[in-house]
């Protein structure tokens, strides 16, 4: 617990890391290691991305993508955590459902987008459905594995005081699984963003980062536009992850204190 580096140093180090990668990419491009025709120079991409930040239309696209992302992620978590608990605590149900779930899990959400297009007449619903489908797996799996990791003595303690199954779930299993579920949510957040963009790419639509990429596809500078938009997707990922990490540090300080030991 002691001596956690202050936020500023985290930011600084992170910035240094990003700058390092930028330089490597730029050098690779300039030295001809990566032909700029094949993959544009880092500086070109960054300046394009910077220009996009001032482009109102692009910002509207980002907002639209984020809307679907947030809705999809929220629903995915709300569905996956209870399901994870159900499956994690009722081995019979888990055994019965497992074949079906394990069959569904590897089906590429991208392959499902065409089907989703057939089923939903509303674009937003379609996007959200696809996001939920892809994003709930990490939350589900992490919930189930987290449940296996709960200290049995902690559960027995509560049971010995006469608490029922539900109370034990709620008061012991949930809190001690929560940090691991949170990791699942962070995984899901990135996947949800990926799916939001992919769905827009495949399905089109009025606005969204994916739609922006479609529009850029017809341009001679398409690659630069696409990669600049991708850059923003990455930035959104970094920011959202930062927020999640902050929330986790607040919520699970007990977890850190107990485990952040001698390094």
């Amino acid at each position, binding site marked *: 617990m002691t001596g956690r580096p202050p936020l500023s140093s985290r930011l600084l180090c992170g910035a240094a890391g990003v700058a390092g990668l930028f330089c490597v990419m730029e050098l690779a491009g300039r030295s001809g290691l990566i032909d700029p025709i094949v993959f544009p120079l880092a500086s070109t991409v960054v300046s394009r991305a910077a220009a996009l930040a001032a482009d109102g239309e692009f910002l509207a696209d980002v907002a639209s993508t984020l809307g679907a992302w947030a809705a999809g992620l929220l629903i995915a978590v709300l569905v996956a955590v209870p399901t994870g608990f159900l499956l994690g605590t009722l081995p019979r149900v888990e055994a019965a459902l497992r074949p079906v779930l394990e069959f569904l899990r590897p089906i590429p959400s991208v392959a499902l987008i*065409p089907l989703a*297009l057939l*089923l939903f*007449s509303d674009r937003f619903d379609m996007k959200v459905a696809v996001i939920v489908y892809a994003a709930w797996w990490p939350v589900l799996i992490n919930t189930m594995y987290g449940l296996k990791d709960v200290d049995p003595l902690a559960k027995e303690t509560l049971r010995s005081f006469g608490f029922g199954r539900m109370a034990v779930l709620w008061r012991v299993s949930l809190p001690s699984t929560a940090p691991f579920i949170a990791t699942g949510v962070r995984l899901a957040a990135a996947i949800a963003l990926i799916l939001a963009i992919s769905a827009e790419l495949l*399905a089109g639509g009025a606005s969204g980062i994916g*739609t922006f990429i*479609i529009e850029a596809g*017809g341009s001679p*500078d398409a690659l630069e536009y696409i990669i600049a938009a991708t850059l923003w997707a990455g930035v959104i990922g970094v920011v959202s992850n930062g927020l999640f990490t902050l929330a986790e540090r607040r919520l699970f300080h007990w977890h850190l204190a107990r485990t952040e030991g001698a390094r």
Partner: protein
Amino acid sequence: ACGGSDTPTETTAANAGGLEKTEITIGALPIPDSAALYIANKRGFFKEEGLTVTIEPVQGGAQAQQSLLGGSLDATQTNYVSTFLAVSAGNKLKIISDLYQATPNSFNLMVPKDSGIKTPADLKGKKIAVNSKKNIGTLAVTSVLKANGLAETDVEFLEFPFPEMAGKLQQGVVDAAWMTEPHLTAVQKNIGATKLADTMTGPTADFPIAGVVVTEEFTTKNPKTVAAFQRALAKAQEIAASDRKAVEEILPTYTKIDAATAAVITMGTFPTSLDETRLQRVADLMLEQGYLKSAISAKTILPGASG
């Protein structure tokens, strides 16, 4: 199949022409082919007919057709090869307007600077990039190959998005690339690629490329709306066909092609009428090259004929 007809059709008071449906969402690709749609919208041709048309960018024909059936789109731009394939698979689709037709040098086979490939006959055993297999690209390239004594199996087609083809040519991942505008102009300028062949000659000369497609259900339920749409779009096609400047002006508004590029690229033509015999050429060539298992009459994909 699902949902399309369930969308409640709004009939507003302003609906003078007794249209069954006044609000239409149409999918369009951000390429020159769909210019007339945007012209019609911008100049108010749709409004004049009592239609409110929303144009949404889509990436490809196949997904757009799925959106059509799912109900998130009422109509969409499509290329004819995709349409015939879809119809042969049992989809009930109707073409209601023609949008775009090839001209010389609008779809060329490009090779890198100083390539050893001098004529299409040199392509034997080589790799060719197309944007999508089993589509116009392969169809057109194959007809060029045939004209040069090669068969489709003599080459290997690889799929790459148009924007990446320049890089693939440069890296030598492919030996030739089938490209269209604005990438054609860009690839010549950026890496000095040269034209190996125009793929829109001979059997593919003036080849029909793209049109507007709806479901059969849509035409039977909304005949007046379809007619209104056709009238409005025809006006715009007229303008696009006769006034290149109009197209050049509209292009930067819905694509990321700037005015300077728009001024120099080679464009196809914008047909003003839907012609069955021209469309039949597509189906016939597809049958000849084995894309279709049995002959399809172009009539079946035109409104009025129930297929």
